């Protein structure tokens, strides 16, 4: 019975993190940078989060089995990592209340389940508060690639562009193709369209910067994408390009754009807004 109460409480507090009508994303402090790539590949801050989560579960598991000694070990372990973590990001030190970790230790020492529940609730609220304020922003900042540093060589101009500029050049050539087709200017549509095809093919080089195993590349810019680009090339080279067929083929190409954007564009926008 006691264990169930502890478990319920812990779950409820963890679930509080994102139950809000409005989410405000705050730019993570610069002092956090040193615990994530490219400054470090050890993810020290995240590792501490995992270690605290494990310690917290250690308390619950052992209380459930009536093993108060081991529960006490984990409570002390939790406090140790909690204090260590509180010193890692000075801007966040006020989120931490080491006294509440001490209270949790005392509650476990008392072997009184109700006291543990109460001490846990208060202690975990300090975690929840920080998570609510920062977790989403931190994940978006550090767990997604930094597109602004990626440069792609434009296959039409032979110049290196940053991602945003490259995307603009590519979509501009696509839009120009559409406009010329709608205006009935086939030759100009062909030129703009072929430039679009080349730029769309070269996009793959951007994926390869991170996706070294090629599988995720295949999902997004794989066979279907390549075939659609080849078809577009073919249609554009006809004596009189068929607008409807071209637009239809364009539709199957943009499926890949959507797939990639669904994964990457929102974190990229957040990162850009933060100037990270």
């Amino acid at each position: 019975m006691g264990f169930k109460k502890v478990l319920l409480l812990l779950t409820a507090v963890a679930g509080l993190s994102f139950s809000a009508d409005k989410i405000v994303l705050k730019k993570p402090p610069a002092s956090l940078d040193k615990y994530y790539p490219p400054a470090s590949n050890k993810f020290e801050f995240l590792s501490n989060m995992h270690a605290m989560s494990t310690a917290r579960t250690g308390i619950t598991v052992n209380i459930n089995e009536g093993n108060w000694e081991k529960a006490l070990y984990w409570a002390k372990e939790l406090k140790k990592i909690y204090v260590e973590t509180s010193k890692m990001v000075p801007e966040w030190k006020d989120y931490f209340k080491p006294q509440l970790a001490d209270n949790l230790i005392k509650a476990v020492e008392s072997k009184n389940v109700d006291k543990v529940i109460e001490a846990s609730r208060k202690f975990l609220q300090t975690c929840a508060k920080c998570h609510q304020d920062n977790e989403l922003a931190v994940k978006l900042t550090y767990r997604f690639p930094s597109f602004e540093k990626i440069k792609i060589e434009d296959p039409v101009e032979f110049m290196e562009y940053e991602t945003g500029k490259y995307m603009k050049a590519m979509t501009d050539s696509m839009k120009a193709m559409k406009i010329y087709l709608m205006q009935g200017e086939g030759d100009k549509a062909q030129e703009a369209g072929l430039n679009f095809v080349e730029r769309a093919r070269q996009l793959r080089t951007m994926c390869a910067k991170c996706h070294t195993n090629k599988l995720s590349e295949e999902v997004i810019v794989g066979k279907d994408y390549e075939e659609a680009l080849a078809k577009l090339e073919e249609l554009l080279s006809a004596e009189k390009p068929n607008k409807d067929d071209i637009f239809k083929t364009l539709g199957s190409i943009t499926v890949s754009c959507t797939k990639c954007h669904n994964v990457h564009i929102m974190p990229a926008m957040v990162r850009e807004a933060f100037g990270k």
Partner: protein
Amino acid sequence: MRLLPLLLSLLILSCEKLETVFIEEDLLERPPSKRCSDCHAQIFEEWKKSRHFHAWTSEQFRVESENYTKTKCLSCHAPHQVDPYKKPTLRVEFKEDGVSCVACHFKEETRAMHGPLKVWSPPHPSKQDFSYTKSNFCAGCHQETYKEWKLTKVEKTCQSCHMPSLGKRDLIQKFPFELFHLAKPRTSHEFPSLKAKPEDIKVELKGNKLILTNVGVPHNLPTADQGNPKLYVVAELEFEDGRRRTVRKLLSAQSKTALRYKEPKEIRLPKGNIVQAQVKIYRKLAWKKERELIKEVTLQTPSP
């Protein structure tokens, strides 16, 4: 007195532990490549000119691996042990040595230096190993290029081109030990990133298509696993009505637009009657900024 050398020889030959008398223990403890240069000075100097030497310290790699935090890239740039087909694990020590001497030649299983030659080497155990002459030795890291090469069904191995023969040479340059060794057939440890010859790329003009075929390099052109070497095709076109146009194409390993061996690649040209096309093909290596001209050709319709 004349018996003394004979007696000494007999004494030495009778010693069961002779093999271990001259062992230099640190050579079996994965030393840095500089240590190998104590004897193999020439090979060391060749290797220092290679991309294998720069594999870890290259600024390009440091930037692309985001300051060595893209961990999945690291093991091929500082491998612990290179074996056929197997992706290596990351070496712990002397990472700055890149693809070092011990990475390729020292095997944990035998605690010996492996290589393609049969040698007598008192300072360290040596084992002749013919896997060093086969392309699959390179396949653990150069996976994509190996797959491309295999599709060509060409007999020439990676080593045939990228470890060219240097004829017979001394393996060691350390007095007086070099006097006890015969010269052996040696291959270059510079691992040259060869440049395609003009005749390796066939260029044809057929109507409004420019057709490029890699007829001489038995893997994609360009090729890479993670780097992105490029070919630049610039065609200056002259039309019957006097118009002139320039068409540019970028072919790269990562965009899957590289020239496959003996597989024609069509480049569509603008509409109109083309009377002449002046085509230039350049390459840019993944770690270089400069483009180098490979081929320049002027074509007329119909293609000569």
